[in-house]
């Protein structure tokens, strides 16, 4: 082979590869382009108001998710679909606002709840929304073979007839009744004065427009080709793994939205989203705490923030070792310099928490925050050692699924603090499924896990603390404390009971409760009347997206 042959061979190879690849990718897209071009050229006269955001960045977001799939993507889905009731804007008072229901009230013993629905709500295709859509949705997602693990109604087994229906023994959920087109009644097996807290993610789906089976909820193309909801925006187009585009719903009961287009761009990585925001390609994204400070003094951006409602803690495994001894637990609480971590590692983007509860409303005023006191920690360990209880020879690997640099920094400080008092802990960073295998399936092998736990402001899963809990906590006080909460009739009684629970956890240091971190959303100043809030589970919360507009 001669020189020109080889040279040209190289060039041809390179060129062929390039052309070969671009051709198939470009061809189908070209057809679409014609269509959109024709459409948009008419409206080019006035400036289009388009908002592009990374609405599925951060915890809770899942671009591949669909409604009733693990609760993901509420921030986005609430643009298209509407829940029965909804969190208020910042959830600061933990109150619910009207959404599909305008009012709701229980009967005397709180076993039957009546929801009065909004008049004049229409589906995107013009059909009327009625109470029977809600009953149908409940049955659709609770169908025996649906395998939906998130039902929109938390703890759905409290709804009468739900279990029977879910197990295929009944044709309908008898506890959910359509009184008339605008009235829905829900009957419960047990009295629950706080049932409203359980239906905030209960979105309505259109009975008339859904053409797939319950078993296809996760796999149906419907969600990405022609979803029909009652929200302020309706579906326009979807490019898998890239973006979804919505346009205003002219039939929306609270007026047509101002934006001409609302686009959710998908990012695999948060840093990529932040860079897209900085380059001006998108107008909004979720960001983590360490990045939010970059935008703090920048007049081009507006910052939205709120607590994560997730308590980060050391989960002590009482099934093993020495954790039943309070002195050992308290040695950890005094041995770690929580105040410095909050001020210097979190840079003030997290708040100390006294107990498991992530809602400050329920924190007792006289709670102890276990001041950093290494001497006291050493003393406590020495006292315990005198009774033959020591940490020696115990596996102190700390599995965690938090793998960000911030989490590494935090655990590094904790490790150094504990080393100062003679305890060597070793954080291990795992992916979530591995973490679950290590922590849940091999509970005999570890002693401390670093994790986060959340919950609702009016519901509290007792499974962690009462009888037969998986961590082996044996504290009889918890049964009474939880029972008192269940028995509470008024909001005030409930608050007192839940505060008492918090107080007990705080005194006992049942787990190593550390902090609730702050989460952030950053929007460009060009977006007006915008609202974002890092709600528990991503919401849904009132964001009034119909008012959003671009300068």
């Amino acid at each position, binding site marked *: 082979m001669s020189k020109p042959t080889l040279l040209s061979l190289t060039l041809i190879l390179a060129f062929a590869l390039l052309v070969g*690849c671009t051709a198939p*990718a470009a061809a189908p897209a070209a057809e679409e382009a014609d269509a959109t071009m024709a459409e948009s050229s008419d409206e080019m006269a006035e400036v289009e108001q388009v908002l592009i955001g990374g609405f599925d960045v951060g915890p809770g977001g899942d671009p591949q998710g669909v409604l009733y799939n693990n609760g993901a993507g509420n921030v986005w889905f609430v643009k298209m679909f509407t829940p029965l009731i909804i969190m208020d804007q910042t959830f600061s008072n933990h109150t619910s606002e009207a959404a599909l229901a305008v009012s709701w009230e229980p009967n005397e013993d709180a076993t039957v709840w009546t929801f009065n629905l909004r008049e004049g709500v229409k589906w995107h295709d013009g059909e009327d929304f009625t109470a029977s859509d809600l009953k149908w949705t409940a049955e659709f997602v609770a169908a025996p073979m649906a395998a939906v*693990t998130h039902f929109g109604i938390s703890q759905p087994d409290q709804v009468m007839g739900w279990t029977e229906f879910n197990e295929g023994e009944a044709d309908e959920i008898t506890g959910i009744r359509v009184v008339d087109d605008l009235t829905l009644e829900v009957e419960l097996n047990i009295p629950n004065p706080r049932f409203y807290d359980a239906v905030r993610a209960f979105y309505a789906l259109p009975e008339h427009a859904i053409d797939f089976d319950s078993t296809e909820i996760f796999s149906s193309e419907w969600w990405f080709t022609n979803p029909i909801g009652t929200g302020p925006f309706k579906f326009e187009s979807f490019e898998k793994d890239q973006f979804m585009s919505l346009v205003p719903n002219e039939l929306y009961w609270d007026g047509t939205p101002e934006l001409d287009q609302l686009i959710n761009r998908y990012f695999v990585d948060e840093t990529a989203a932040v860079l897209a925001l900085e*380059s001006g390609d998108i107008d909004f994204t979720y960001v983590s705490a360490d990045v939010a400070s970059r935008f703090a003094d920048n007049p081009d951006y507006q910052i939205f923030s709120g607590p994560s409602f997730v308590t980060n803690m050391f989960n002590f495994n009482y099934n093993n070792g020495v954790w039943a001894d309070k002195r050992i637990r308290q040695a950890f609480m005094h041995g770690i310099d929580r105040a410095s971590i909050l001020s210097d590692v979190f840079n003030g983007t997290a708040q100390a928490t006294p107990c498991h509860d992530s809602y400050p409303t329920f924190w007792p005023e006289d709670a102890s925050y276990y001041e950093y006191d290494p001497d006291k920690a050493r003393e406590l360990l020495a006292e315990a050692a005198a009774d033959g209880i020591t940490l020696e020879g115990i596996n102190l690997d700390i599995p965690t699924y938090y793998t960000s640099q911030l989490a590494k920094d935090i655990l590094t400080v904790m490790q150094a603090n504990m080393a100062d008092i003679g305890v060597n802990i070793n954080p291990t960073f795992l992916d979530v*499924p591995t973490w679950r295998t290590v922590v849940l399936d091999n509970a005999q092998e570890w002693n401390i896990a670093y994790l*986060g736990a959340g919950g609702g402001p009016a519901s509290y899963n007792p499974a962690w603390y009462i009888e037969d809990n998986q961590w082996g906590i044996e504290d009889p006080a918890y049964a009474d404390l939880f029972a008192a909460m269940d028995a509470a009739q008024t909001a005030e009684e409930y608050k007192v009971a839940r505060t008492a629970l918090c107080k007990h956890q705080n005194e006992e240091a049942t787990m190593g409760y550390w902090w609730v971190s702050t989460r952030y959303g950053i929007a460009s100043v060009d977006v007006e009347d915008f609202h974002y809030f890092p709600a528990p589970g991503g919401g849904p919360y009132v964001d009034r997206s119909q008012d959003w507009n671009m300068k």
Partner: protein
Amino acid sequence: MQYFLRRVLVNIPVLILVTIVIYLLINLAPGDPVDFFVNEEIGITKEDLDFVRERYGLDDPLPVRYVKWLGQVVQGDLGFRFKNGDDVAEVLAVRLRRTFLLMGTALAIGIAVGVTLGIFIGLRQYSFWDFTFTGLSFVGISMPAFIAGIFGLYVFSVKLGWFPSGGMRTIGKPDSLFDLLYHLALPAGTLAIFNLATFMRYTRFSMLEVRGEDYVRTAKAKGLKPPAVTWRHVFRNALLPIVTVVGLSLPTLVAGALFTETIYSWPGMGALLVDAVAARDYPMVMGIMLVTALVVLTANLITDLAYAVADPRIRYE
């Protein structure tokens, strides 16, 4: 030809063996596909999970599941994703196209520029150019792909505004070849730097190696002009390691580059594998692995055949 057929036939049991090993490995890995359906904030009972498990056939013993899977694959059915019910074959088709475009461009640039520069500096060992190009290319590879990607975005998108901040097309604008290339430039450029360094190094080393060979000296003694010597003899013989390295790079055309795809929001195969593994989405993982294994085996076969072309003395009986 006979050799070729035999190799293809041998590859079939090898491929099956590979899938068995991979199937075993995935199932051995900690974690469970149903974990994806678990949300701590909602509270899910063990019965719910068992139900999901049964629905996906995860309650069968491992060998049964493998045989079922293999049976489907033989019929051309790669199954559906656990995570969202997508057809695995369809997902692969879309993602492969994207990754092939990205990696193909990067590889083509890398080979073309890398080999050229390699020859250039191979003929000028220890010269200014040798040190300059060597140094520069090593700057590129001494940085993790992810950081290089952030750097690229930060400089060329945020600061200079020359290129878009990732993605594959401008949202809201009509799709065009230009737009695609515009989005391709940064990620492909970042990847090309690494390829370039690789090919430059191997080419340079091989050039130096064969320059000292007897036949090159003979050729020179015969009075052949230096360029002729270079092309006819030196480069020809330096080709062998380059062929191997190209062969070793071919699988990346379908495997993709995780970090580059992630930071540039280029949804290709690398990001897909991580997504599938994170959800322990066995059908998707197996689909990706099957394609990758096929390409690895084919690339190795092609490489072996290419040896015989590059060096006619190598014969396969």
